[in-house]
């Protein structure tokens, strides 16, 4: 008897091909994604060098040589830029960091003084920063380390032992140079003067990067699920016959779709607002920092998400199918878009793919408000993209709704 029931259940399971596919395909897809993001799978083939902006205000032989050596390294690609522009680009999250070589670099090398170097970085990309810092220190050590050591020693002899014969000084310097480990320790004590500052100071002080990621990432992912559910009401109406009855009345098919979408939009705005208010009350997320940008961003995100929800409904022919599609698409989009894993820990290629997801633009927009503290004008393009996604999805939905949903009435 048990065997009969067992066989029946297996048969029923595999009869639902989409369900069966979902059971196996979705975990495989997610495993692949996470392995790619965390496990470095394919990293050797696809890893791109970290792009580092450089500003050379010293423009001397030593500064040029140091930057040339940096460029020659495999893991780094330098891009020369003007100071203000470079800092803005890092602030906007376009680049990890900018290395500013101030005037007096060559003189400091010669005298063995702390180097006038500043690395302004985006703390949201700490993994890339960690790698960059290590590469940078190595480069400085090999490029100017010896010269700095010599300068430091000479200055020390002149100050403490004036009149020391030249051959004694040279002998002492040779001895010092042969002790690479000791030299590294001595020079690395204060990072050779390299100043590291985050371009977003306030955020560091509040330490809310993780919170922003958690709130924005989770809010958008959960919103996608709930909107797919609300949109699914349209399929319920089809199954219950109320959709057919709506069409008997002087209502256009698109009115039915837009009515549902408007409800989804308002509920999305409400849901996102509640989530941000909750995060403010419980976790202290500074939602009043730039309220107008936040409101506009919530509306743009809600529009994109509700259009996406309606799009999912338009491609599905039943509730069951919608559940399958929405689980796969939302999970994938959330994984690549940064809802599940912060985008900055993902390989470059994944970060490039992320732009196809609603999650990416939403999360980046909220980053701009809470983390990068960008003005509204700088965030508007991201809002524009979300609105464009929403409009695109709406247009596709109208066509598919007529084709898939109305046809089956």
């Amino acid at each position, binding site marked *: 008897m048990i065997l009969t029931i067992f066989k029946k259940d297996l048969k029923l399971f595999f009869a639902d091909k989409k369900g069966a596919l979902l059971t196996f395909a979705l975990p495989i897809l997610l495993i692949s994604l996470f392995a790619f993001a965390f496990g470095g799978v394919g990293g050797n083939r696809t890893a791109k060098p970290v792009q580092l902006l450089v500003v050379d205000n010293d423009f001397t032989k030593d500064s040029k040589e140091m930057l040339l050596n940096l460029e020659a390294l495999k893991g780094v690609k330098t891009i020369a830029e003007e100071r203000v522009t470079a800092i803005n680009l890092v602030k906007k999250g376009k680049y990890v960091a900018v290395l500013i070589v101030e005037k007096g670099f060559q003189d400091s090398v010669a005298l063995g003084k702390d180097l006038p170097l500043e690395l302004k970085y985006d703390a949201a990309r700490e993994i890339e920063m960690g790698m960059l810092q290590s590469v940078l220190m190595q480069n400085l050590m090999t490029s100017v380390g010896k010269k700095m050591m010599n300068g430091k020693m000479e200055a020390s002899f002149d100050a403490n032992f004036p009149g020391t014969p030249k051959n004694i000084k040279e002998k002492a310097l040779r001895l010092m140079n042969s002790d690479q480990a000791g030299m590294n320790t001595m020079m690395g004590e204060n990072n050779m003067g390299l100043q590291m500052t985050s371009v977003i100071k306030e955020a560091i002080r509040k330490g809310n990067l993780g919170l922003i990621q958690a709130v924005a990432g989770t809010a958008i992912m959960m919103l996608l699920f709930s909107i797919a559910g609300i949109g699914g009401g349209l399929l319920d109406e089809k199954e*219950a*016959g*109320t959709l*057919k*009855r709506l069409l008997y009345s*002087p209502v256009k098919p698109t009115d039915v779709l837009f009515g549902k979408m408007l409800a989804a939009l308002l509920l999305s705005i409400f849901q996102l607002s509640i989530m941000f208010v909750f995060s403010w009350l419980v976790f202290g997320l500074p939602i009043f920092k730039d309220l107008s940008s936040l409101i506009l961003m919530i509306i743009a995100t809600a529009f994109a998400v509700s259009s996406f929800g309606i799009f999912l409904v338009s491609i599905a022919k039943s509730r069951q199918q919608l559940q399958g599609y929405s689980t796969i698409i939302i999970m994938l989009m959330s994984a690549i878009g940064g809802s599940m894993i912060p985008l900055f820990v993902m390989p470059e290629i994944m970060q490039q793919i992320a732009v196809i997801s609603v999650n990416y633009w939403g999360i980046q927009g909220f980053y701009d408000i809470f983390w990068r503290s960008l003005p509204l004008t700088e965030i508007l393009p991201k809002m524009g993209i979300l609105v464009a996604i929403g409009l695109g999805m709406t247009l596709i939905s109208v066509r598919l709704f007529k084709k898939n949903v109305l046809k089956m*009435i």
Partner: protein
Amino acid sequence: MIQVTNLSKSFNELKAVENISFSINKGEVFGLLGPNGAGKSTTINMMSTILSSDNGTILIDGNDIKKSPNICKTLIGVVPQEISLYDDFTAYENLLFWGQLYKIPSKELKERIATILELIGLSDRKNDLIKTYSGGMKRRINIASAILHKPKILFMDEPTVGVDPQSRNRIFEIVENLNKLGMTIVYTTHYMEEVERLCNRIAIIDDGKIVAQGTQSELQKESNVKETIEIMFQTITTNQVKKLKEIFPSVVQNKQSITIVCDANKELSTIISICNSENLQIEDLKLNKVNLETIFLNFTGKQLRD
């Protein structure tokens, strides 16, 4: 009121409706009678604007459905086969919602809802959620939702499916009342007794084609189906059958029984007295009256519930 000419509709290879024509007069209750899958709902869907035809024309009160769908939509009301209501709304909320789609002014709509609830006998339950209603009550609200905008024509697609006899009678009364108020009704069903009770004229539809149409007596004439009496005797001889045939030429013998085509009301007593005079002992007697079921069987070779 409705003029359907050469209407056809196919779904891929399946010809759901094939070149049908009929007209429905103002104030009529017109029955579309056919088994499941005959093409009744497809025809109703085309007449109610939600399905476009491949060929043919439909005129609703003189308006071409393809050219003026919105005018036609205001002229018609549809009671769908499914109970198309929002379970989590009350009856009143449902009626309010469906009425608002026709842009009926708020005050007028509320008055109409009150009148209709009275008509269908559910005024006292108006504030109850639909999900708490019985099947028959839901059916009545289903009808009410379709007549709020006072349509000239009401399409009723199998409105009594799954209801108890009492509710069915209540629905019949509603249909009759609406018809008395001047509403033209197109009624589809596969229950012949409903058509017999309610419809002035009938179209028999089978495999997407109208095989006959007219009043029930017209259909009876056209089908050539006659009322018969079947009499079973203890024994009957060939001579006795011959004698009976002289009086009733339609007599057919089958072993110890005969079947006579006749008008039972007029001729039954004569038949019995002749049998007595011939010393034929009657064991059993069966009257086969002509009804839509037999007419339908004659036209299509199928039972209505096939």
